[in-house]
């Protein structure tokens, strides 16, 4: 469930953005980019046995939103997020974090930014095997030179927050996968980061636990309101969590939009492929299927619904009502109406409507 409307988010300041990012693995990538004016041909790359993992990618992440980068395995998601955090040096392009060019930061500044403003959760947890849960969670604070007492107090707080109270003295290998990732999450939150990177945090978990962790994640986000860059190759996960989704293919970002926009207007066949299998009721909002009000002034409605809730959340009411529902915006103004037939069409015809 979106915590805010997309128009709401679009009004917020940009927290992190990147512009024309390239990452080419192999020697001579930068040279090639310069020669070809940032538009190398495919056979140029092959000839020099270079791999362009990220190609001319640009995204904007606004404050407090969950921005999801989606794509199949090998499409360059991890490389992209590592360019954003500068774990990998992009071959070209710029990364702006809170207005500052991250690529121009010197090593000292970078360390300071990472210590205080960034948190990251990894696919395979990346816990330090020789430290207990407490030690792991307190580690980023220890690196900053914070006194033992203080950092352990703070660590205990976040450990409780992720529901691992009582396991402080356990070692990572004594925990289940889900618990280990909770430690990973707690650890990345310990420094209260401004931006939170998660690289397929739940991919290594089995489906039931994954679901549980997604709920947990949403619960945390409701409390903390972090700016989040979240990577996944699972579209279901993406639409559950996302405010915005960027779809990547072969290193390029091919579409950015809200889940709804992607489902309604997929930019390419490739995006459509992703969205096909998705039950539309989960994605579409009432506003996107409403029709104009037929008889102005006529208030013969079974009830009222907000335009920005998803059809899925309407529940059974509308199916039993014979009169339409009024659709209202957040200012209580009626902006349209939905009928049972429309909703039924979406629900029944859901995933077979492959042609858009």
């Amino acid at each position, binding site marked *: 469930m979106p915590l805010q409307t997309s128009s709401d988010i679009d009004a917020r300041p940009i927290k992190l953005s990147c512009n024309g990012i390239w990452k080419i693995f192999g020697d001579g990538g930068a040279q090639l980019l310069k020669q070809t004016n940032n538009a190398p041909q495919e056979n140029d790359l092959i000839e020099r046995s270079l791999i362009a993992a990220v190609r001319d990618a640009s995204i904007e992440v606004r404050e407090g939103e969950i921005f999801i980068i989606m794509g199949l395995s090998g499409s360059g998601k991890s490389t992209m997020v590592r360019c954003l955090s500068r774990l990998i040096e992009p071959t070209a392009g710029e990364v702006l974090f809170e207005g500052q060019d991250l690529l121009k930061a010197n090593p000292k500044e970078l*360390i300071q930014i990472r210590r205080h403003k960034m948190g990251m959760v990894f696919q*395979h947890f990346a816990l330090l095997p*020789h430290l207990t849960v407490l030690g792991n969670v307190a580690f*980023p604070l220890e690196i900053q030179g914070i006194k033992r007492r203080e950092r352990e107090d703070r660590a205990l707080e976040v450990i409780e927050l992720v529901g691992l109270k009582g396991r402080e003295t356990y070692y990572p290998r004594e925990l289940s996968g889900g618990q280990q990732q909770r430690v990973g999450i707690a650890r990345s939150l310990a420094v209260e980061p401004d931006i939170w990177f998660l690289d397929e945090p739940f991919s290594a978990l089995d489906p039931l636990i994954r679901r549980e962790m997604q709920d947990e994640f949403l619960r945390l986000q409701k409390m903390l309101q972090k700016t989040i860059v979240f990577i996944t190759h699972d579209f279901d996960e993406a639409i559950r969590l996302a405010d915005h989704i960027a779809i990547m293919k072969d290193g390029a970002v091919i579409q950015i939009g809200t889940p709804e926009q992607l489902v309604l207007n997929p930019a390419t066949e490739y995006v459509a492929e992703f969205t096909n299998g998705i039950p539309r009721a989960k994605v579409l909002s009432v506003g996107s299927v409403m029709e104009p009000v037929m008889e102005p002034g006529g208030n013969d409605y079974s009830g009222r619904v907000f335009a920005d809730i998803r059809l899925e959340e309407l529940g059974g009411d509308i199916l039993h009502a014979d009169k339409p529902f009024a659709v209202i915006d957040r200012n209580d103004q009626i902006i349209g109406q939905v009928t049972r037939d429309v909703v039924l069409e979406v629900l029944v015809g859901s995933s077979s409507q492959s042609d858009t």
Partner: protein
Amino acid sequence: MTSRFTSWQIAWGVALSLAVVGFFLKDIAPWAFKYPRDWVFPLRFWISDFVKWLLNDFDLGLFTFKEFTRAISWLIELPYIFVRSLLSDGFREGQGSNAIQVFPRVSWIAVILFVIMIGRYARDWKLAALASGCFTYLAVFGQWDSAMVTLSSIIIAVPLGVVGGIMIGVLGYRSATFKAMIMPVLDLMQTVPVFAYLVPILILFGFGPVSAMIATVIYAMPPMVRITLLALSQVPEEIVEFGRMAGCNTRQLLWKVLIPSAKPALMIGVNQVVMLSLNMVIIASMIGAGGLGFDVLNALKRLRIGEGIEAGLAITLLAIALDRLSQGLANRPPPEHGSEVKNFAGRHPFAIAALGFMSLTWLIGLVLPAFQTYPEGLELTTGTFWGDTVRWLNINYFDQIDGFKNAVLLNFMIPTKRFLLSLPWPVVVGLVAMLGLQLGGWRLALLCGGMAFVIATLGLWPKAMITVYLCGLSVIIAAAIGIPVGIMAALNERFHRVIQVVVDTLQTLPSFVYLMPIVMLFRVGDFSAFIAVIVYAIAPAIRYTDHGIRRVPPHLIEAATQMGCSPWQILWRVRLPIAMPEIMLGINQTIMMALSMLVITALVGTRDLGQEVYIALTKADSGRGLAAGMSVAFIAIIADRLINAWSAKRKAELGLD
């Protein structure tokens, strides 16, 4: 007609015929049979001159090179003297016989108690019993003093080797350029026989424990460097990324993330350093390390078999104790929650126990001297027993033993030696190059042919051929015994377990120890060297065969069984061909070990490159020693590269990874 042979077969036919024709050219081209003296490349003199210049004239600006080596000596000597006083000599004041003991050494009881504690900490009471049993032997059989001298060297050498190895490994991990620089050096150091670098060290640092220690550290460090490089590169990429994201600076990343994550793998390296140090400390008794190695050497020189065997046994037991203890420490299970202890005594049980034992035994020792030093009256000796046994064997079985020895020598060894020595060197160089060409292409051909050629230009050809002959024959026999044993071990679980213990033990023993019982039966000469090399080098042949056969994919065996193959057919047609690349790697290891052992067998009077190195050592001629040492290394590298190339080619053909 030609279609029945591949082009390589034809090429080999032509080359071998040319080689035969070459034999008849002895009068026309005598230089091909005996490398002329005037053509010898004077490398060894250049090296000697260079070392002399280093020592006498090289000025580093602020200080001379000599002062530099002195400073290093002093740095190593100080802690060494301290540990040695603590364990062996006691602290004294004054010179020579006027010295008075200020404070006694640690009592033997305290040392044994401490060993028990380490054993218990590292694993369990069983290990504690084993290790302390070994140490008790040292006390009871009068080997304590020498053993403690040896142990002191190890206590100093191991931390130096470990820390140095980790530091170099870390530098290599951080800088690809540095890594590319050290890798060939590491390769070379593993193949240059240890004696070869004993000589320059001896000249630079003088005869004595410091030289021995430096040689030991240099010898034991390369595996630690390798293991560090490997262990660090095996730390999962995500963990490194996490460290960077947490904002670690370079130092924090190393000490708080990389090294702790790599610790289990690094500990395996520590075990290796301990074992290699022990091996080298024993060998380094030739340049003044003292201790157990010196006892063996002394006994060897004077042919006091009984004493030698006792000291050898002491080395063996010390090796077993150190190996099992360090392995136990390396494999200690990772901690579990709730196992952390907060108070001081709980966190430092060893320091406290050690101090406790030391002061307690010292106090009691004031009243009861037996607590301080194991009473001489209670010492046992088996020396006379061994001496008698050998005498008895030699009197009663002289004919059989000697007959066997002569039969092998006359029918097998001497003909091979004559044959190899009669080959003209350009032909051998050519054949080696051709083999390289076939197995790995031009670069390998150039490398192998070039190295063989250099050996000739150094004027060491005949000695190199003797090395090849001794090494080759021993490896053939080691393979002929080792491969079948390995096969049996692979096919029979119980036999496998027995063999495992035997092979483990063989690999723990310092090379020196092997000489003792062999010399006592066969006296000095090529034959003794031959047997010693076989026994020393057989372990990898067994181990790799065992492993290779076990790794044959089960579905292939199933398929073969299904096709109705008999067990023999499965062995010959399926298991062996598929395991062959791995078995060859084992043979490769066997060759490497054989070469390193050959240099040590120079002590029992062979006339190969090893002898050349040994003579150089006694004459402190660094050029001669290094030239001969390099030649041994070249032989090792040629064998290594050829076998690896073959094995890689074969594996690719079989589609194994």
